[in-house]
């Protein structure tokens, strides 16, 4: 059994942060189902799960490809009233029959896809991470969900910030060896790939971890891009700082990796921080902005003194 997913992360198209009440209304994608939320450390609001039917080929190009039938499970979330995410996952199991069963069979196992025909887990895993256009198109399902949210009449455009979307494609597999592994690969065009192996993976926890990782990777990517565009420290002067102000206002306080009530994602964050130093990179950039702000304040004060 393997679990595959794709998280799409972007900026909510609203002029300010949305409140808890507004986020709940925006994410009420299905009448009668309640939206869940966490207030601390950062406001996190998540929609009820939605399902999409799938019947498609999965697996590697150069091997006989299995047919997978079932449903993908999607959820949308708004963090800090600013960041919107949609994650779509499937639990992929080897089927035991050679034909498609009645649809009620697949709906009694929501979020699962069963394969018809042979395709080893390892081939499916490799194809999922290798191919540009992976099948099933979980990223497309996530993107459409974000588009639906961005189209909500409750949002007031434009946003004060401009930021792109990132996609984090992930896979978790059970492995016979006792060593748990996590591999993070930065791809092109906003794609990141994460591969996790563990003897007894907790797939629900790992899905939460990947959403949290996608969020923080987006924050870092966005900050890096904005700092580079602003000309900070490259003679951009106060103008550079002004261009960064919306970022400082809206996003700098949202960095809180691993801070979910379920602490079981903590060891994964610890391992990743040790290898990648995401928080180190974030803090370096934040300190750079603060240092430039301090210098600008100093020069302004000195100039004011001189004029008096």
């Amino acid at each position: 059994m393997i679990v595959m997913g794709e998280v799409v992360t972007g900026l909510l198209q609203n002029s300010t942060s949305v409140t808890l009440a507004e986020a709940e209304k925006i994410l009420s994608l299905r009448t009668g189902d309640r939206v869940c939320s966490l207030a601390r450390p950062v406001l996190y609001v998540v929609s009820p799960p939605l399902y999409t039917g799938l019947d498609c080929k999965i697996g590697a190009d150069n091997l006989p490809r299995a047919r997978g039938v079932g449903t993908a499970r999607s959820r949308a979330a708004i963090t800090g009233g600013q960041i919107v995410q949609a994650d779509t996952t499937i639990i992929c199991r080897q089927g035991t029959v050679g034909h498609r069963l009645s649809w009620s069979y697949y709906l009694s196992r929501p979020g699962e896809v069963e394969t018809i025909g042979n395709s080893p887990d390892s081939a499916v895993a490799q194809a999922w991470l290798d191919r540009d256009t992976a099948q099933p198109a979980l990223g497309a399902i996530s993107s459409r969900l974000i588009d639906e949210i961005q189209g909500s009449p409750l949002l007031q455009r434009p946003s004060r910030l401009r930021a792109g979307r990132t996609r984090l494609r992930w896979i978790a597999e059970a492995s016979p060896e006792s060593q748990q592994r996590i591999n993070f690969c930065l791809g092109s065009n906003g794609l990141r790939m994460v591969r996790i192996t563990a003897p007894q993976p907790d797939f629900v926890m790992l899905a939460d971890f990947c959403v949290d990782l996608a969020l923080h990777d987006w924050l870092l990517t966005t900050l890096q891009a904005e700092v580079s565009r602003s000309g900070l420290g490259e003679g951009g002067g106060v103008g550079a700082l002004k261009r960064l102000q919306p970022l400082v206002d809206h996003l700098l306080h949202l960095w809180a990796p691993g801070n979910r009530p379920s602490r079981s994602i903590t060891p994964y964050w610890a391992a990743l921080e040790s290898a990648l130093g995401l928080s180190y990179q974030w803090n370096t950039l934040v300190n750079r902005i603060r240092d430039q702000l301090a210098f600008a304040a100093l020069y302004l004060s000195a100039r004011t003194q001189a004029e008096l």
Partner: protein
Amino acid sequence: MSAIEASYSEATASDREESTPLAQLSIELGHLYREDFHGDRSGLAAYFSRVAPWVTAARQAYALPGGHHRARISTCFLIDDYFAPFSTPVEVIPALCEAAESAGLVIDYIARESACAVADGVPLARLVENRLVPEPPASSDGSRPPVTELGWLSNGERSPLAAAEAMDGRASWQPPLQNSARHHSVFADVELWSETGGERLWSCAFLAAVWQLVRLGAVRHNGAAVTRARPHAIHSSDTWDGLPPILQLNSAAAPFAAYQTLSVLPSRFLLVEHAVRVILEQIAVDDRIWAKIQKRGEAEGFDLSAEVVDRISYVFDGRLSVQQ
């Protein structure tokens, strides 16, 4: 001193769903429409006398494993007050109960068909509509949104619209294709609702699908149970909407909702109930509620299927008719 273990949680982090009492089996003794009711009670008595043996057989078929305890079985009857409301509660209900009693049957609950659309202010039909997950045709990889026809649901791929022209210039028909066909297709296309002047009229098949889900205790609105069966004085209202959506007639009855349902119906309902199956095969019930119900059933010794449609059984009897 040993270290203190602290944990943190928030009440809004997960949604709690209300549990409701459940019988082991709900038996539907029939549906009554305007064209069936002529006020003559002998037709009704004959109807129930033909239903009664099926109820006796059901009590045996659905008995608890081991058979030590009396099974919790409740009975219900559905009256149409949605498509063509007729007569009054005080004329119809005593007539039904007397006729049932003459055949040794007790009607525990009377439900109004309009309750399947809206019950106690809760839009049940809309709630169920939102849970539709249509069957994907082959080659659905999620890259494009699913194609749906507003107000219709099928179990396969419809015949193509622009049929190819044959050599003699006439359009040739291309067959539809049932998704889960084995060798040959049985294709169904079900109308879920129609709209006139902005007003939506739900189809009989869709309301009957909602009816089955309510009987299985599978519907919640913001976590709360959707409607509670309750007693009410039938002479207190001349119209059906003055009564509760589900009227409890028998104070000693087992709960209205149950792990499984059985409906004893005239054969003419087979087409509609097939449509109900097409619909219910494409409804994703709340999986947490469903898992809880399954666990409760298993704790009582029942081996319940995980599929909604397998909890629903029918007796279609060609001899059943209330018309004289």
